[in-house]
Every structure is written in C-alpha cells, then in structure tokens.
C-alpha cells in the first residue's frame, strides 16, 4: 500500500511545491517508487519543471474524461519517480476545476488505481485551506506542513492545524500529522532565528530536519530542475532533502505506515 502525504500550508509562498518536488526526488533516489501529484490549480509542479503551462496532460483531463489515469501519469528520467501533473487547465476555469475536483471522486479513483505501484505518493496542494486542500487531506494518510521561517507563517500555522484536526475528526480518521517542516530558515538573521527558537520551544512536532533559504533553489527553479539535479558538486540543500526523506520514512514507520523496513531480506555477501 502507498503512503499518501499531502504538503499543506495556509500561507502562499511557503515552499510547498519546492518541498513536494524535492522530497519526491529524494524518496525516489532512495529507491522508493514515488508519485508526485499536483492538485494545485496554479500547477506549481508544472511551472517548476515544464517549459510551458500547457505542456502536460494531467488531472484536469481526467476530470473532464479526456484522458484515462494511465495516460496522464508521467514517468520521469529518475527511475522510480512519476508525476501526475495538473493538466492543461485554462486559468479562467480554475473555479470549475476546483468545484469538479471537490465534488467528484477523481482524486480517490487516481489513488486507488495507483496505490499498488508506489510506496509514497506526494500531493502538492494549493495555498490556502479551501476545498482542494480539504479534499487532498481527506484522501491522505499523512500531512506535512512547511513552515516558512517568517512571522506571518508562524502566526498562520494554527489555521492549518485547525483544518487538519477538523478533517481528521470529521472526514478522515486515518490522517496523521507527519510534522512541521521549517523552510527558508536563515539562522543568521535575527527574525528567522527568533521564529525557529519560538517554534522549537513552543510547538511539538517540528521536524529535526529543516530547509535553509538558499540561492540554489532559485537556480534550480530557473533551470526547471530539482536541486539534486543541478550540475557540479552535490548541493548541501539536496542532502537536506535526503535527510528529510529518511526522517519522513522513520516517522511513517513509527506511525504504522508501510515503509518496507519490516520485509524479510535475504542474506547478502559483501566480498
């Protein structure tokens, strides 16, 4: 069975897409079959990787029955990683897309269809706590909350937690909070340091791994690549995502998720 993880934040620009993309890459790099689903009407994943907004078919085509799920799940050049893009959605149809996704069972159907193929399914959600985010949470096993190390983001974390709690109590009792992931951290800046200090001391569930603010993310975005795929020396930020992937796997294991760690392994020979 898959572990479905929604990346959720009420605040825009909090790094959800960056986290979703680079975490999916790190999981796939660790040989875990991973699917990255973009439910954000803005199509952040597409913007991060594709040349244009209309390059890839995806969820939108499934919604209007122009394509079957199998046609729109896109294998990548990284073995083990596939992407289900948002699709060629006209920005003028965003409201209709949200309504259709919310009122149909397409997302559930997608997950049911691919559940046996992937160990991890990462869902990149839109900013805010609207019906798409609620929908994603209602079909997820876990939620990961990126917390931008900025004052507004810290103040807004309660909103996200409240929705998460509501969905868990009313719609999806199997939903677990994986943790709060601090991103865009600059401990050399007083404000950033203060935020992290407050978060660490006041909130439980803040992950040990955090993602620093770094120029390398802009460079990767400019080239349409995950950070681990940039040429040259392996960026420390990519290594952060490797550590994050391990922490996520450990947490999922401790929360009863299927990580494959309990599987019997054959004896191997080293020399």
């Amino acid at each position: 069975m898959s572990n479905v993880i929604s990346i959720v934040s009420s605040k825009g620009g909090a790094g959800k897409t960056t986290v979703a993309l680079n975490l999916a890459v790190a999981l796939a790099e660790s040989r875990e079959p991973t699917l990255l689903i973009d439910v954000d009407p803005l199509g952040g994943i597409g913007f991060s990787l594709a040349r244009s907004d209309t390059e890839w078919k995806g969820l939108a085509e499934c919604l209007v029955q122009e394509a079957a799920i199998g046609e729109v799940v896109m294998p990548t050049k990284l073995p083990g990683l596939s992407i289900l893009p948002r699709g060629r959605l006209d920005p003028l149809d965003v409201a209709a897309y949200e309504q259709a996704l919310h009122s149909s069972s397409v997302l559930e159907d997608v997950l049911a269809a691919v559940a046996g193929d992937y160990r991890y399914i990462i869902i990149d959600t839109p900013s805010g706590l609207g019906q798409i985010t609620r929908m994603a949470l209602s079909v997820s096993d876990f939620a990961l909350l990126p917390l931008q190390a900025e004052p507004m983001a810290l103040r807004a974390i309660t909103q996200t937690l409240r929705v998460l709690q509501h969905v868990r109590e009313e719609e999806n009792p199997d939903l677990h909070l994986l943790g709060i992931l601090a991103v865009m951290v600059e401990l050399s800046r007083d404000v950033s340091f203060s935020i992290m200090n407050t978060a660490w001391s006041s909130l439980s569930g803040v992950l040990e791994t955090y993602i620093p603010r770094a120029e390398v993310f802009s460079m990767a975005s400019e080239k349409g690549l995950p950070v681990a795929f940039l040429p040259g020396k392996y960026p420390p930020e990519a290594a952060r995502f490797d550590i994050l992937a391990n922490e996520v796997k450990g947490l999922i294991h401790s929360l009863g998720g299927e990580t494959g760690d309990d599987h019997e392994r054959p004896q191997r020979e080293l020399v």
Partner: protein
Amino acid sequence: MKDRNVNSYDLKQAQQILSALAPAAVTVARKKAAIQAQAAFLKFPQRPMQALSGSVSVACPTTAAGQAEQLAPPETIRTWDDCIRWCLEATRSHAAFVVDSQGFIIASQGLIPEAGFECTGAEMICSLEQLERIDPEAGKLLWIDLDYGQRRIAGLVTPSNTAEYFIVGLVSPDSFRFFAHKALITSKILENLPHID
C-alpha cells in the same frame, strides 16, 4: 500598550491542537482542543455558496425559501426616523440611531441598550478624530464597526464640508444582512442627505 520587546506569537492554540493530534493523545484532550479552538472563531453560517456570494455585493440576500428578499429603499428619505426605520429593517438590527456632530442622539428606534447609551453618541464623536489619525492619508472615516464581546455597533459617518455631520448607527445588526446591504445603505443615505430633516 503592546510590549514590542517581546515577540507576539500566540501559539497556545497551535500547541493544543498538536497535542491533540499526537497519536498518544486521549480523546478527551482532542475534544477539548477542538472546542477551545472553535470558541475563538466566528461561526460562519453554513449556507450554500451561491447565497454567501451575495454577502459581498449589494444584491439582496435570499430567504430560506429561496425567494429574493426585497429590500426596497424609499424613493426619498425625508426624516431621520424614516432613515433608521429602513436601516433597522434592512439589517435586522436590534436598534438604530442617529447622532449629530455634537454627540446628541437625535433619533432612535428599536431595542436601545438601557445603561449609558446616551453617552454612546458623544463617545463615538470623540473617537472619530482619533480613529482618523490611524491612517490620515486614507481620507475621512466612512464606517465605524465596533465588535464588542456582547454586541456590535456599526455606524455610517456622513461626510460633510461644513462642521455638521451625523452618524447613523446600528446596534447588533445581522452580519449577513449588514454586509449584503452596506453599500446600498451608504449610497442611499448619502444620496438623500441634503433632504433629510
């Protein structure tokens, strides 16, 4: 006054929810956190989205039967009594009143709060000048909306080139109707202002 030397993050509620979400948390703790969180928020009416969309326009809200509720403003408003009667009905307020620029309540209808309400007009007038200082470049204050724990008082301040101006106040208006009709009330009163006696 706020102490700016300490940070302003109130994360108690966030931590309560986090504790409730923890796998080991008992059900009682979860419920308690949910109730406490709920109490702090405005209870948003669970209406169909089509009806809610009307709350940001001047369109009339719909009744439970789905019929458009007619808010027919009088052709012309001649007296302050006519004016507040219409406002009272349109917004389903507990009371409506008019304060002149001296702070005197010159007209009132509805369930006027008993204790100390005669001072409310004067206090509103005194506060106007200070409220405008909050953002001096934003122009004259047009609406005051005071949301207290027990009731809400909203008031339209009529603009004036002379020293004379008025506040048309509403006590505990129905939020939905208030926002639905706010623009219409504003335009109708301002349009009729020269004729109101």
